[in-house]
């Protein structure tokens, strides 16, 4: 708590909180990063669940690079948002729920991406014993569960993230 009080009194924290542009600009990056990581994750889930079957699953290897770029952008902008109002966020259950969901969503994305990195054979393994038939990957139940979980974690993170804005800030120091 002492650390949070100190952090909140640093010039940088005050600037993030009170300047005209600090907070809005950080939020801009946070929204763009969200679109990239959540957007691509949702499209991947749709593909795994059977949408656009002639879209090669391996092409997501490259798209995951963009998704991780968005994830990194949101880690940095998220840390800045935390520095701006650490005491309020620490006191907000929605913030903790969001952090837990982000960790799970990130892990799911990592597992799904790892399977792609390992090459086509691994994708087929993830995809199940059906293998590739006429360019179409037969998706295993495990991959379907991962795809659904990924979407649930990200949507949960968006909901809890939005709710953070609806909690009352502690009195200023």
């Amino acid at each position, binding site marked *: 708590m002492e650390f949070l009080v100190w952090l909140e009194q640093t010039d940088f924290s005050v600037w993030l909180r009170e300047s*005209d*542009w600090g907070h*809005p600009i950080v*939020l*801009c990056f946070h*929204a*763009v990063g*969200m*679109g*990239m990581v*959540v*957007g*691509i*994750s*949702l*499209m991947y889930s*749709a593909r795994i669940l059977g*949408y*656009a079957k*002639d*879209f*090669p699953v*391996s*092409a997501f290897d*490259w*798209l995951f690079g*963009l998704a991780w770029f968005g994830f990194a952008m949101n880690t940095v902008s998220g840390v800045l948002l935390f520095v701006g109002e650490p005491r309020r966020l620490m006191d907000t259950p929605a913030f903790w729920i969001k952090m837990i969901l982000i960790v799970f969503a990130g892990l799911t994305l990592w597992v799904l991406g790892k399977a792609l990195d390992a090459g086509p054979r691994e994708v087929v393994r993830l995809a199940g014993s059906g293998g590739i038939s006429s360019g179409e990957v037969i998706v295993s139940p495990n991959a379907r569960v991962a795809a659904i979980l990924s979407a649930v974690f*990200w*949507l949960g993170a*968006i*909901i809890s*993230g*939005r*709710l953070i*804005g*609806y909690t009352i800030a502690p009195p200023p120091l």
Partner: protein
Amino acid sequence: MTEGEVLHWIKELPLGAAVRESRWLFAMGETLHFIGLSLMVGGLLIVDLRLLGFIRSVPMRAALAFLPFVIVGFLINLATGIEFFVTDPFMYWPNPAFKLKLTLIMLAGLNAVVFMVLDHRHKLALTKDTGAYVKVAAGLSLSLWLCVLLLGRLLPAFEGSTSFF
């Protein structure tokens, strides 16, 4: 009717009153607006980047198959956007970020409509590469929607001002 009277009439609509009185409707709208945003960005990245010549291992038709996500995301955001506007039209209407955002949405829509009218989807389904027009349209689409997103996020910062400068 004057501009003020129109805005006043909009503000008195039952939808606006319901959202203002409810504790959760506005927050739910915002959450849906973010989900719609994510669907749009995800779909647009796949479609526009493929049109620009990235991820060439993907057949053009398979990439264009992700367009419905963009359209659904847009409809979610149009509906929730209207919800926000009727809640407080006097805040949104004079806001320069709101006006520019609306203009850019119309330009992005026009860009998409021209693309469809020229029937590029059907022609493209058969090709591996795209011409200069399609690349420009895809680049425009990505840049315009990025600006729309940023202006939406910056909208509250311009609350109360009537011009950018």
